[in-house]
């Protein structure tokens, strides 16, 4: 299969970025919107074509999906270690291409309406182009370093887009926080890469992931503190993934990231960038699975499960609709991690992997839809808060419907997309680890609950008195909603296990009816509870909130994680480390240097008396000098 044209997929958005970025001032907003949309449309078409070619034209060879790579050396480290730039085409990268293309295209279209009239309109599309380019690059990466490079680039695009409203203090802080927290995670990622590079001698995915390759077979060669160094490397790499995918405890940036424009939240912080962590683990899945009997993979599973639960609990208490969605995203990402964590490798064993990817796919659709819907709402009422909303179904029918579809999908109501993927994850969990399974089921219930709390809160409940009467968004915004709604409905019907599996062979997936029933029931219970609590304006929720007392308070304050981080950064790092160091530098280090100078001058002051002006004193020194020198050289030094 000729894959050269795939290079165009990232290149086109990059060109769009350069065009819009450099001629930022000269391009009319109307034009730039079209440039962005059509650029992405081209990329999306190529992506679809690539997917079509890969899965259907080329298909399996010997029952296995082939991996195609094309790469060129970008930089040499040593004779063996080098960074390549290239593209790697395999099932997950193709799938990711599709996901990114669809969501990004929809967001582009949506943004034309949403951002209308904004003074940074062109800039916005430029940034979107940059992000899309980086994301394509990330998913197509052939080696760890390339993925790291694009990893950083998506990070910075995220930073730029979160800080898009750069005059808003909260947006600046959020952007900074997002970047620094993920940067911290990347620090781990980088160390992981270093370890891998040093001990396996390569960064290349194909070589690394080869189950018969030396990297996997020789994992036990070197160990450190009881664990194989490769396991350490994978754990470090997972830190990187956890940072991007907002896993506990590196999740704190994600809620704040909602300061960005809503389309951005949909694209980056719901559908694509945040799944990079999941993608990374999936990318290295053979290593995670085989090295040290999946020790690192277990960690992934637990972290995922805990994050899913943790985020879901918080999501219940949030009142900012975007934040609810943000925690929901985190929760779902935890789900995907969990899925990967409980996966096996071959055949049906690998259902967790497949399910996780599947969930990634479906989640991208319905979560993007949720965000865009929320954006539509915000656009209409000019507020992010539930308290300012209610009964919007009367004003915004399309938004209402599409939002409902998405909520149902995420709640796991069959036959919508979420149901299928989530169900598979639970199956995998059930087969591997019961504890995680129970957590998963519980989270599914919570998800349904908070999602419908949100839905009812926005579209039902009491009619507020709005300053401006809310009205349905323009076609440019509703069209993507509709498209994504359709995808959310039908997405689950794709026979995913045929295409994307850990061993690339594929298997026939079957619905496990008892488990599916349990999950669905739990979901519906959640919806029901939300109905009871939030369908009509009542004080039931407040009462229960009171009943839970401190727990509710903690959850609504996100378990004080922000405060802890604030404490560590502001109080410890800034006050106790940075400030003293800065002071130390001025006072002690610089002081010493100045001190040397000043002391010299001081000595000079002190000894000036010797030059008394009295010729006899001079003579005295002269004679004393002679005598002393004579003494020294006659009695002390000679022979």
């Amino acid at each position, binding site marked *: 299969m000729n894959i050269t044209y795939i290079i165009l997929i990232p290149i086109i958005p990059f060109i769009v970025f350069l065009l819009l970025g450099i001629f930022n001032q000269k391009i009319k907003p109307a034009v730039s919107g079209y440039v962005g949309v059509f650029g992405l449309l081209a990329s999306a078409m190529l992506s679809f074509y690539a997917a079509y070619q890969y899965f259907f034209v080329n298909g399996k060879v010997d029952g296995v999906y082939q991996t195609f790579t094309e790469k060129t050396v970008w*930089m*040499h480290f040593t004779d063996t270690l080098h960074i390549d730039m290239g593209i790697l085409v395999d099932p997950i990268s193709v799938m990711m291409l599709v996901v990114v293309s669809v969501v990004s295209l929809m967001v582009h279209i949506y943004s034309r309406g949403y951002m209308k009239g904004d003074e940074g309109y062109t800039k916005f599309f430029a940034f979107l182009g940059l992000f899309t380019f980086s994301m394509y690059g990330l998913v197509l990466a052939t080696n760890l370093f390339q993925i790291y490079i694009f990893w950083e*680039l998506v990070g910075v695009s995220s930073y730029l887009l979160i800080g898009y409203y750069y005059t808003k203090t909260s947006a*600046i802080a959020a952007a900074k926080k997002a970047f620094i927290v993920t940067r*911290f995670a990347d620090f781990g990622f980088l*160390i992981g890469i270093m370890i891998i590079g040093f001990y396996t001698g390569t960064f290349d995915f194909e070589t690394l992931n080869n189950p018969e390759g030396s990297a996997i077979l020789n994992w036990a060669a070197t160990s450190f503190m009881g664990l194989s160094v490769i396991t350490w490397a994978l754990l470090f790499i997972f830190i990187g993934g956890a940072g991007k995918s907002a896993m506990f405890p590196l999740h704190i940036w994600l809620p704040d990231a909602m300061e960005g424009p809503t389309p951005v939240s949909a694209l980056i912080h719901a559908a694509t960038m945040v799944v990079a962590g999941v993608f990374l683990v999936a990318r290295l899945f053979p290593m995670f699975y085989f090295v040290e009997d999946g020790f690192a993979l277990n960690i992934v599973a637990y972290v995922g499960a805990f994050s899913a639960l943790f985020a879901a609990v918080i999501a219940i208490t949030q009142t900012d609709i975007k934040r609810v969605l943000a925690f929901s995203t985190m929760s779902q990402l935890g789900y995907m991690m969990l899925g990967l964590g409980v996966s096996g490798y071959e055949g049906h064993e690998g259902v967790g992997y497949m399910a996780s990817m599947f969930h990634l796919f479906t989640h991208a659709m319905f979560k993007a839809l949720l965000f865009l819907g929320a954006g539509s709402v915000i656009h209409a009422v000019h507020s992010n808060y539930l308290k300012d909303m209610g009964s919007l179904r009367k004003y915004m029918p399309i938004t209402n419907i599409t939002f409902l579809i998405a909520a149902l999908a995420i709640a796991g109501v069959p036959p919508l997309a979420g149901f299928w993927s989530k169900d598979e994850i639970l199956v995998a969990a059930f087969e591997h680890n019961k504890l995680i399974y129970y957590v998963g089921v519980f989270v599914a219930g919570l998800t349904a609950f908070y999602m419908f709390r949100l839905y009812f809160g926005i579209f039902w409940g009491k009619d507020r008195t709005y300053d401006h009467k809310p009205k349905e968004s323009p076609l440019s915004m509703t069209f993507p909603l509709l498209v994504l709604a359709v995808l959310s409905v039908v997405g689950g019907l794709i026979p995913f296990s045929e295409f994307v599996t850990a061993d690339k062979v594929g298997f026939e997936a079957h619905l496990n009816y008892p488990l599916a029933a349990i999950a669905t029931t739990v979901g519906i219970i959640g919806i029901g509870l939300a109905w009871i609590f939030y369908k009509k304006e009542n004080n039931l929720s407040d009462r229960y909130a009171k009943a839970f007392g401190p727990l509710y308070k903690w959850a609504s304050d996100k378990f004080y994680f922000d405060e802890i981080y604030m404490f560590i950064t502001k109080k410890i790092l*800034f006050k106790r480390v*940075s400030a003293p160091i800065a002071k130390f530098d001025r006072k002690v280090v610089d002081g010493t240097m100045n001190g040397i*100078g000043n002391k010299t001058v001081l000595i000079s002051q002190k000894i000036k008396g010797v030059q008394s002006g009295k010729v006899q004193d001079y003579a005295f020194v002269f004679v004393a000098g002679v005598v002393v020198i004579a003494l020294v050289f006659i009695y002390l030094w000679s022979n």
Partner: protein
Amino acid sequence: MDILSLFIIVPVVTILFLVFAKSLKQARMVAMVGSLVQLGMAINLVFAYLKERTVNDSIMVFTKDVVWFEPFNIHYNIGVDGISVALLLLTAIVVLAGVFISWKMYDLPKEFFISLIVLSIGVYGFFISIDLFTMFVFFEIAVIPMYLLIGIWGSGPREYSAMKLTLMLMGASAILLVGILGIYFNSDVDGGALTFNILEIAQVNIPVEVQKLFFPLTFIGFAVIGALFPFHTWSPDGHASAPTAVSMLHAGVLMKLGGYGVFRVAMYLLPEGAVDWSWIFIILSVVGVIYGAFSAIKQTDLKYINAYSSVSHLGLVLFALLMLNKTAWNGAILQSLSHGFMTALFFALIGMIYERTHTRDITRLGGLLKVIPFISVIYVIAGLASLGLPGFSGFVAEMNIFVGAFQQEDMFMRVATVLSISVIVITAVYILRVVGIMLMGPVKNESYLKLEKVTWYEKFGILLLLIPIVGIGVAPLWLSDMILESLDPFIKGLL
């Protein structure tokens, strides 16, 4: 006339012309033309070098060897390898950018440009010298104009800063002198003549004891100008007081002499000394890396931030050099280049901001993205480059350093490496802090709304610096291979 001596002669001719310049206009035209010619020569040199390299595999090419002081066996001996070629290009670019940035130097323009070009002579000469003595001469020539440049055209406590900078650097070069003499007088242990020629000395097996004695002297001598902790304090004050172009040249080029000298002299000639002493200097450089970054977090003066950031970045250079392998060394050279461009760019931008707002205190600035978008955007880009974002030169350099450092297996080196890698996070903190406070946010001062837009010469200067940053960042292969290849003979000295 050989191609390298022109790097000395052209600036001298430029100075001669400058002497007769009557006004700012004439002076800057002469300076610009001179620097343009230099840049042309530097670019030409790169191609000539690449071409020459295919047919010539001696360590240095384009060599020229003229006996200077015969009794001491001092030669005017010049030549280049890939490393020097790259650094020469850096110098030419930064000097030209500096001239553009100083377009409106109303006070004593002629003298300003003369000093600037004298400085550049020192730097060019240093990079092409093979002879230790010549190298030392150029080293000092490069340092001393700083005194005048900061003292006359500087701001703030300029006299104090200029004096401190000069004394510390000259003090360091004094220590260096002892080291050089020590090397010189031990260059005959194999029975040859005493020589200052680096390539010849490298062939001599200087006794280990001697190496141990003189390595720290040479290392510190050079490293002070490379802002080795705790001898870096001249740099924040110096930068803060210096006029824009001087900060650019100083941080961009002059501080590179440190790393280059350490590499060319201390490491190459005294490898066993290097191995023996490396631990302490590794500690110092890692402390410098972290410490510089943390100090930068707390500063409010833009130039101080950048100065401390330089301490941190150049700490990485020294750290990499001490890692004693090709990858790290490659990283060190690349970092020198990259930091050169980046920090020069930073200082240029800071200068422009200062010129417009008359303050460098970030707490008094805000929302500049709105009022001077071009400068601000470039500032953001420079910041991102500085924190090692892929696609910019900083990333390429840092990755080489880290990967190289990681080749060292023992625990001490590992810890040092991980600590130094952690700087990527701290760097992000202080860069984004500045971006957040200064460029974003509401405009803090009404008068800022009417700031002058960027002028053509400023744009020129900025682009000159930005292009290589992006260039190296996007396509590092040719450069890094050119350097790697030149590193071969040096690493052989260590094995």
